[in-house]
């Protein structure tokens, strides 16, 4: 019967419907409107009927009225003049005694996106916002959001935003929820004005409404709560307590929004608090439950769990089994589960995990099987104790001779070899048996690497490599580069002609290198490979923190900050986890409200996985085809500059690098030097010593205290060594001889590496400059301040004592550049208590200049990321005693302030005083006009 609603021909439809709509019979009219709606629903154009349908609007039949409203909403835009006809009825309906009609009218009017109608909407809307009936008020609240979407200025001019804010304290929970939802939507296009002005009173209102409103309202309110920063840990705990019951809600979106609030506010709770532990325990079951829901829900849940296990692995560490893959899970669920399994893998559960992974490697889906094999390799690298077991599992898989399994296994074994060199070469024979079956570039590249690396253990390595060389021209870049490197490994000098300029150049450079200085060549090609890190795709820490604040959102599914992809978001405020603050202290986090206008053009900032060896070894110019290499370490950019850039930078390096640790034979032409410079940098920063910061000489020992001997001096780091540069002046009446120097025990074991070389007697009024090389092999004692050094100088007259302070940068060693992945893992590993934050004001260098300058003092930029107008530099420092310090430097291009966060594994006090020193480096080194720096907390 109803099928007749589907008409075959549009034309006949329109004609017939027109007649029916103008019929005198009410029933026929209604049926006709129904047919019109049905046609509209399936996408037919029935706009031609506009006047006829609008004529049916004035009716007391509610259904007919609703149907006409439906039609109006769809077509008013295309017939704005006609739509005016409807205005009177709307205005009248807004005064109807029946609240259902009032609400319907205000709701529909808001959906008609015609300017002329919008003007008439204001008065009825104002009344409806204050209607006695909450159903009308809640409908009106949403209407403000609609109106704002059509005409934002009008909404502001009419003061509707203020009325909307008032509705947050409405007595009806649904009105509150809708007001929050409307305000949240509006504020998305108004990132700078703080519409949801949250204070303890409004938070309390929201928490009360949370218990009583619908599930959807709960989502809006929870998402809104997540934007609040509690004043202290007590407030944080009390909000957590009131949000926790939402974890038992049947609606998974409510659960995940509650998880977001808890994950964020937990950050403020002291870890030794009982409640903290309780909360951790409460988070696991709801997350597990999400995984028994429909696959689409599971997928979103898994993407979020991936973030949660990176931030707080302890929550789900006992729940490994729920991530085991069922063979009929959709592929997108399988892959996510696999990823989380590796993240949760530990010595305790590795046996189970490996057994599962081995099982997956026999499944049908090739993609999934490959990922499973890779996962075995990742386990080996992550859990050292399991490496042997992983290798034997991989060997088992190779024995299956399934082609793609073998190839994946070989790629993975290469990584294991790199991580644990000289441990598992016994399996090389088995690998070599499978040489012929390798037809994928990555697998071939891996095999070539293995053969080259262990050439001396493989009898016929030459032959094997030759066999790879045969297909040279057909190979992909990846394989050929690998071949090139490995053939060089074997000191074979004939670099084949290749059409790929990258390869040719590289071959050429190697060749030049080999012919000029074989020793240097060895150093370059056989340079230590970067470490294989434990976790191959950790999310960079600042991004992770931001994503935790966005749990449950699209951002959390894509693991990108919201502004990276949401259309029309005009500069989203960056969210940071709150810092832990005890009650009574100030809660203003230093960088709260650091929102900066302008959408960032930065690419997504997930640090690329370290899959390809090539990328690690020769990382700069191959320009991998994928666009997903967002993080360009500043040093690398510099390298590119040097190669292709102007004379300026070359000269700069020539000057600065003059005293550096480059092997002498490599002096060559500037261009050559530049090219090699970047090679060296890639090889692990062998010798990039450039002008490190040297404080001006200060008078350490005035003449009047030392019987006429005046000593002034400074410290410098040159050519990888530490020097104490002294000026000795004889103000006494007699000649001075027999100089000697001794240091008291000090914090870093600094000691003279040789005697004080004052060979000729120092005559009256004569000054001599002496450079005393130092080492760090002396006895250690903690000094206060940490960088204090007590010195005794003896001459023929007497022994004199003085103390001086050396810049901490003196102790920053040249190989302080950490591998990106190691950096990530380490940063995550260091508890946040060990973090210190500083703000450096009035700073005018851009990030590249700062990075270069800092690198001169052996503060290495590991990675750089640009978010909105901020540059984030991730830097590593290694001290002579092996302590690593990691820093994040935020540079805003708008305000000349730097924000720095420093983490070190060493104790807090060390970290703090190190920081003071570090800040001094920024301070004295190159910040002219800097008055002060601010210390947080």
């Amino acid at each position, binding site marked *: 019967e109803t099928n007749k609603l589907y008409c075959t021909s549009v034309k006949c439809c329109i004609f017939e419907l027109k007649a029916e709509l103008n019929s005198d019979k009410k029933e026929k009219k209604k049926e006709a409107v129904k047919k019109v709606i049905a046609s509209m629903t399936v996408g037919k154009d029935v706009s031609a009927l506009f006047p006829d349908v609008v004529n049916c609007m004035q009716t007391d039949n509610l259904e007919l009225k609703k149907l006409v409203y439906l039609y109006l909403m769809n077509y008013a835009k295309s017939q704005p003049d006609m739509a005016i006809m409807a205005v009177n009825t709307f205005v009248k309906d807004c005064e109807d005694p029946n609240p259902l009609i009032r609400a319907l009218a205000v709701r529909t009017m808001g959906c008609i996106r015609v300017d002329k109608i919008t003007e008439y909407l204001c008065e009825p809307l104002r009344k409806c916002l204050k209607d006695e009936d909450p159903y009308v008020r809640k409908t009106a609240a949403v209407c403000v959001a609609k109106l704002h979407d059509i005409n934002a200025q009008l909404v502001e001019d009419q003061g509707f935003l203020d009325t909307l804010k008032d509705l947050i304290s409405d007595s009806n929970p649904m009105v509150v929820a809708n007001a929050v939802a409307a305000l949240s939507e509006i504020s998305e296009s108004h990132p700078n004005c703080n519409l949801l002005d949250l204070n303890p009173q409004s938070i309390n209102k929201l928490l009360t409404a949370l218990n009583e409103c619908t599930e959807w309202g709960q989502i809006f309110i929870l998402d809104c709560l997540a934007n609040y920063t509690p004043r202290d840990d007590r407030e944080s705990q009390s909000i957590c307590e009131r949000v926790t019951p939402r974890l038992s809600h049947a609606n998974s979106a409510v659960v995940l929004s509650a998880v977001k609030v808890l994950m964020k506010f937990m950050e403020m709770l002291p870890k030794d608090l009982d409640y903290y532990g309780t909360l951790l325990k409460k988070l696991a*079951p709801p997350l597990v439950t999400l995984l028994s829901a429909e696959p689409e829900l599971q997928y979103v849940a898994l993407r979020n769990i991936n973030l949660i296990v990176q931030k707080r692995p302890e929550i789900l560490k006992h729940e490994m089994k729920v991530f085991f893959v069922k063979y009929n899970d959709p592929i997108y669920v399988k892959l996510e589960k696999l990823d989380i399994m590796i993240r949760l893998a530990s010595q305790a559960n590795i046996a189970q995990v490996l057994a599962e992974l081995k099982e997956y490697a026999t499944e049908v889906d090739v993609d999934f099987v490959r990922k499973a094999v890779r996962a075995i390799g990742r386990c080996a690298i992550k859990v050292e104790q399991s490496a042997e077991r992983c290798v034997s599992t991989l060997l088992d898989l190779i024995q299956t001779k399934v082609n793609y399994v073998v190839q994946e296994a070989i790629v993975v074994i290469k990584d294991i070899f790199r991580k644990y060199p000289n441990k598992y070469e016994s399996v090389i024979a088995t690998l070599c048996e499978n040489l012929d079956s390798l037809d994928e570039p990555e697998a071939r590249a891996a095999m070539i690497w293995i053969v080259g690396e262990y050439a001396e253990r493989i009898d016929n390595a030459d032959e094997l490599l030759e066999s790879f060389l045969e297909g040279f021209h057909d190979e992909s870049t990846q394989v050929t580069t690998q071949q090139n490197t490995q053939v060089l490994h074997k000191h074979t000098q004939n670099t084949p002609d290749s059409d790929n300029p990258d390869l040719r150049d590289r071959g050429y450079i190697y060749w030049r290198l080999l012919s000029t200085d074989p020793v240097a060549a060895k150093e370059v090609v056989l340079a230590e490979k970067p470490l294989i890190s434990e976790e191959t795709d950790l999310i960079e820490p600042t991004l992770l923190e931001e994503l935790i604040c966005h749990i449950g959102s699209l951002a959390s599914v894509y693991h990108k900050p919201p502004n990276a992809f949401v259309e029309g978001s005009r500069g989203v405020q960056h969210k940071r986890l709150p810092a832990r603050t005890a009650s009574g202290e100030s809660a203003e986090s230093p960088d709260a409200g650091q929102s900066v206008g302008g959408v960032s053009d930065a690419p997504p900032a997930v640090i690329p996985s370290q899959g390809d060896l090539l990328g690690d070894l020769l990382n700069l110019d191959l320009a991998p085809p994928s666009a997903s290499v967002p993080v360009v370490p500043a040093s690398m950019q510099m390298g590119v500059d040097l190669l292709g850039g102007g004379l300026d930078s070359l000269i700069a390096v020539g000057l600065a690098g003059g005293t550096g640790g480059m092997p002498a034979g490599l002096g060559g032409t500037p261009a050559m030097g530049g090219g090699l410079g970047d090679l060296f940098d890639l090889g692990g920063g062998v010798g990039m010593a450039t002008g490190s910061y040297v404080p001006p000489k200060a008078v350490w020992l005035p003449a009047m205290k030392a019987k006429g001997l005046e000593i002034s001096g400074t410290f410098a780091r040159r050519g990888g060594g530490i020097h104490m540069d002294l000026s000795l002046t004889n103000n006494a009446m007699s000649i001075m001889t027999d100089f000697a120097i001794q240091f008291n025990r000090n914090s870093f074991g600094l000691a003279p590496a040789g005697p004080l070389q004052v060979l000729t007697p120092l005559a009256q009024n004569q000054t001599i400059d002496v450079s005393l090389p130092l080492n760090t092999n002396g006895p250690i004692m903690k000094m206060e301040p940490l960088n204090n050094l007590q010195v005794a100088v003896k001459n023929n007259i007497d022994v004199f004592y003085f103390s001086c302070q050396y810049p901490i940068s003196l102790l920053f060693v040249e190989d302080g550049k950490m591998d990106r992945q190691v950096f990530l893992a380490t940063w995550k590993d260091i508890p946040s208590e060990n973090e210190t934050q500083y703000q450096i004001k009035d700073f005018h260098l851009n990030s590249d200049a700062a990075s270069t300058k800092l690198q001169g003092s052996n503060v290495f930029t590991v990675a750089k990321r640009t978010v909105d107008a901020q540059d984030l530099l991730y830097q590593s420092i290694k001290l002579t005693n092996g302590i690593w310090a990691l820093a994040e430097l935020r540079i805003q291009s708008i305000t000349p302030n730097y924000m720095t966060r420093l983490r070190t594994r060493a104790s807090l006090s060390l970290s703090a005083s190190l920081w003071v020193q570090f800040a001094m480096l920024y301070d004295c080194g190159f910040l002219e006009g800097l008055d002060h720096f601010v210390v947080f907390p």
Partner: protein
Amino acid sequence: MIHSLFLVNATGDIFLEKHWKSAVSRSVCDYFFEAQERATEPENVPPVIPTPHHYLISVFRHRIFFVAVIQSEVPPLFVIEFLHRVVDTFQDYFGVCTEAAIKDNVVVVYELLEEMLDNGFPLATESNILKELIKPPTILRTVVNTITGSTNVGEQLPTGQLSVVPWRRTGVKYTNNEAYFDVVEEIDAIIDKSGSTVTAEIQGVIDACVKLTGMPDLTLSFMNPRLLDDVSFHPCVRFKRWEAERILSFIPPDGNFRLLSYHVSSQNLVAIPVYVKHNITFREGSSQGRFDLTLGPKQTMGKVVESVLVSSRLPRVVLNANLSPSQGTYTFDPVTKLLTWDVGKINPQKLPSLKGSMSLQAGASKPDENPTINIQFKIPQMAVSGLKVNRLDMYGEKYKPFKGIKYMTMAGKFQVRT
């Protein structure tokens, strides 16, 4: 919020669209169709798909894709949950949620969607509120409407929408007052080759059908509430009371609803009610494979295992299977390689078995993958977790209702690796 909704059938036709804000062109679905083409199975279409200007979030139910279009940052779970609610509502209104049913009731569908969202914000999603607003179509009502000229749309303000108990209508009346509760548990398990349990967990629900006059206030207590440490409640359940006393106290919605769902994790010992003895072998170079499967009951607390259905996707090299079942019937689809064996009941005295040979592609090598066996079954009158309802009490009304509790255990994703 949610911008638009497109319904797409398995053949890739858009058969319904609804826009809650300005209209979005159908062409946005092209991105969805691309993803659909790439996926080997419809189930594998990723649920969130980015396009240059929009995001598409979809669920696949009843062979229909429900594709929501969003433009700003909206929680994806919010969208997915809403889409589920749409599916449930259609099923509730039309008995089935099929393309035909939706097309037959297209105006009601449109009215429903209009009531469920306003400007993309959820408005009325509770079944009983919707039913006050828009009456479900029945044959009788269609006839009556045609004669009297009355409509499907309610004339009254949906009172439930504003009351403290939005899930329940006022003025409910029944001549027979009854409240039934079904405790249904599904076991998800992976059993390895040797028969030991890799992982096993229980997903349980208590579904209720409550037809009680007035505003009854119910409490439901359990013999062993400690089993329920991971629960999700219907909004009607008073959470504080549960926290304090482990008692479910609630004013029920009218009609059918899910009171709670719970999860018994793999860390608890989960009883496995069936076992499988299998011997599926392929020999290198031979064109024959052997297939031998026997089922038996295990930890069933004396209850009968029934409606047993075994299915397995055999390797691609299997051309055909020549098997003989000791009971029930089996089918093998040489195209999809899906073997299904409808076993029926398991008689512990005479264990069901399926034996025989498989013919393999000539010259093909031994298959790389091992088939996984999927088992479905039901065990009435038993909740495998051991959960037991203690008592059900009613307050607030004077009549004596009829009460009933039923237990049932089923296989969820129950998989045996070979």
